[in-house]
């Protein structure tokens, strides 16, 4: 076992509730029995874990003001739960507006009844044969968040869960877990929001989210990886869709030294639908890797997936989009599209659609492209007096804005659009021209 594998366990926060301890033990055993994958492992071919080979200590406290961590959160109207370096921050959270039909509780705070529900559902989406970093997540899990939406409940405002990495002087690691249970015919929105890291020391976050959608449930899910620079993240979202469930899942990743996110959608009941969209924007020497996997196990379901990336400077991106249509999944309609824009000759993207189709009566369309900015579009802008630099900003932003526009939560869109527009403008004076 490598140094990292040992000491990341040593640094795991302690003090988990007793009913979680058998989970931890099992996770620990699996983690210890494994080896860290190298570049020869297909799944990790383009993403190196070298950056993890250093000492991470346990985060020591979450008692940091968000403004001190350089984080400004949008007001999205709904309840908000804030964690800093893995620690719950009551002062910065607000749960008053939690509507009836929704229960939001930390694992460490769960009463017997809630603990029972958590135990009954935790791991249902990740499954038993789980990937290595999920084992680590469980080994090191001391707390987590459980969002329990009652059958038939309809939540108007999004639930905003924020995880911030703030400077604490020494490289640290954090483990996060979110479990969302959407009862039958319920509808809700949840925003996972990772922030911080700019100008800080290294941190390593391992965040695993499970989304369980029961029959007829609708969930809008957003996972925003806005943490930057030395905030490393290896994370995973696993969703399970029952009959007639609808999942809209949006993903955004700014770059950092290492970001690897796996998204798995598992269809377990007929007539379910998932829309999976995302945007990744590494630059400098950053790295972002999205691995998505759609498991069509049952008939009559649809999936539609659109990911776009802009890779600048000497950054690298990986997109691997797997669609697995099982033998019984007749009448599946699956669509996958990945487009990439390279804004520098040093930038690199590895994109690969991976189709495995065992049913014969299905429609499956996929496409992946890598291109530079459209010269003719740029010329058109310039022919109206817009400078080349401003035109490039407009086109870059426009390229991802098509995906951002698919965000249903207006307040979130209003927060992201100017922020992303600003990101493409090296000259701040250009920002006003775009957003």
């Amino acid at each position, binding site marked *: 076992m490598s140094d990292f594998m040992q000491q990341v366990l040593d640094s795991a926060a302690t003090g988990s509730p007793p009913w979680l301890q058998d989970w931890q033990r099992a996770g620990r055993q699996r983690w210890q029995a494994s080896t860290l994958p190298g570049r020869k492992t297909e799944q990790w071919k383009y993403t190196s874990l070298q950056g993890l080979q250093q000492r991470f200590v346990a985060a020591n406290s979450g008692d940091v003001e968000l403004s001190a961590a350089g984080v400004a959160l949008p007001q999205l109207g709904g309840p908000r739960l804030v964690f800093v370096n893995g620690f719950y921050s009551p002062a910065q959270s607000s749960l008053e507006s939690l509507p009836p039909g929704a229960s939001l509780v930390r694992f460490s705070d769960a009463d017997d009844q809630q603990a029972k529900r958590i135990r009954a559902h935790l791991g249902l989406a990740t499954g038993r044969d789980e990937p290595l970093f999920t084992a680590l997540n469980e080994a090191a899990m001391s707390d987590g968040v459980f969002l329990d939406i009652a059958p038939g409940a309809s939540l108007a405002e999004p639930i905003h869960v924020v995880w911030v990495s703030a400077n604490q002087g020494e490289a640290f690691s954090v483990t996060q877990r979110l479990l969302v249970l959407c009862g039958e015919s319920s509808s809700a929105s949840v925003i996972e929001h990772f922030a911080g890291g700019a100008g800080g020391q290294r941190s390593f976050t391992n965040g695993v989210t499970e989304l369980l959608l029961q029959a007829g449930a609708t969930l809008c899910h957003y996972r925003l990886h806005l943490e930057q620079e030395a905030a490393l993240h290896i994370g995973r979202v696993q969703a399970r869709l029952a009959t007639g469930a609808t999942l809209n899942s949006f993903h955004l990743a700014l770059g950092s030294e290492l970001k690897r996110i796996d998204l798995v959608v598992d269809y377990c009941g007929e007539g379910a639908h998932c829309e999976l969209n995302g945007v990744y924007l590494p630059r400098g020497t950053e790295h972002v890797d999205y691995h998505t996997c759609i498991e069509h196990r049952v008939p009559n379901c649809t999936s539609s997936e659109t990911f776009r990336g802009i890779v600048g400077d000497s950054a690298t991106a990986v997109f691997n989009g797997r669609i697995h249509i099982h033998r019984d999944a007749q009448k599946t309609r699956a669509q996958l599209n990945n487009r990439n824009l390279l804004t520098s000759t040093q930038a690199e993207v590895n994109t690969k659609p991976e189709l495995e189709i065992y049913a014969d009566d299905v429609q499956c369309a996929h496409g992946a492209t890598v291109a530079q900015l*459209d*010269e*003719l*579009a740029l*010329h*058109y*802008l*310039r*022919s*109206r*007096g*817009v*400078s*080349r630099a*401003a035109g490039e900003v*407009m*086109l870059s*932003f*426009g*390229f*991802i*804005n*098509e995906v951002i*526009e698919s965000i249903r939560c207006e307040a979130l869109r209003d927060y992201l659009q100017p922020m992303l527009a600003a990101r493409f403008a090296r000259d701040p004076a250009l920002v*006003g*021209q*775009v*957003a």
Partner: protein
Amino acid sequence: MLKIENLHAGVDGTDILRGLNLEVKPGEVHAIMGPNGSGKSTLGHVLAGRPGYTVTAGSATLLGQDLLQLETEERARLGLFLAFQYPVEIPGVSNMEFLKAAVDAHREQRGQAPIDAVSFMKQARETCKVVDLDPAFLKRGVNEGFSGGEKKRNELMQMILLEPRLAILDETDSGLDIDALQVVARGVNAMRSSERAFVLVTHYQRLLDYIEPDHVHVLADGRIVRSGDKSLALELEARGYAWLEDEVA
């Protein structure tokens, strides 16, 4: 205002313009007609500095400045406007933001601060009315999914907002219904002034019933082969181009 002398230009080494001469004075309206593929759009592209087009000989000046030495955006800010025959679709960039960026770039050139968003909205909505375009098009992506006629109206809207000194309209009347033709004519006529000039590239004499040109030229084989007054357009309408090509040859 615009002076083109012996212009030779082309794409990928093929010569498309072969010794073109044209002078446009302030206040004038020129119409350029000519067979398909004769080089009319190429002339517009070369003047606007479209990538891929190279000038091999000759000169072009606008308001005394050597156009060919300027970047595309500098030409625009100097007062050159080209309404594209095929306007470009730019999904994801809102038409409104695009228009404002263009207007602000022109303002910057004149030493003015960017226009405030509210005034601009108002101005853009009014211009929509002038070109008979639903203001909802301001929110769409630039030309994204616009019909042929809507794209042309959008070009016209840009011209009105940017107040160029020299506007080249490359078949802005093509694919337009009769009402839209009048919209183009009204737009141009309202902007006519002693300080401004227009070059209308068109295949149809009809447009010239609404916008009276001072000069009509026939471009064939990369050259102006015949110039005259508006009666030339009527003659072309009646006789086509073949007789001219015979005469030239």
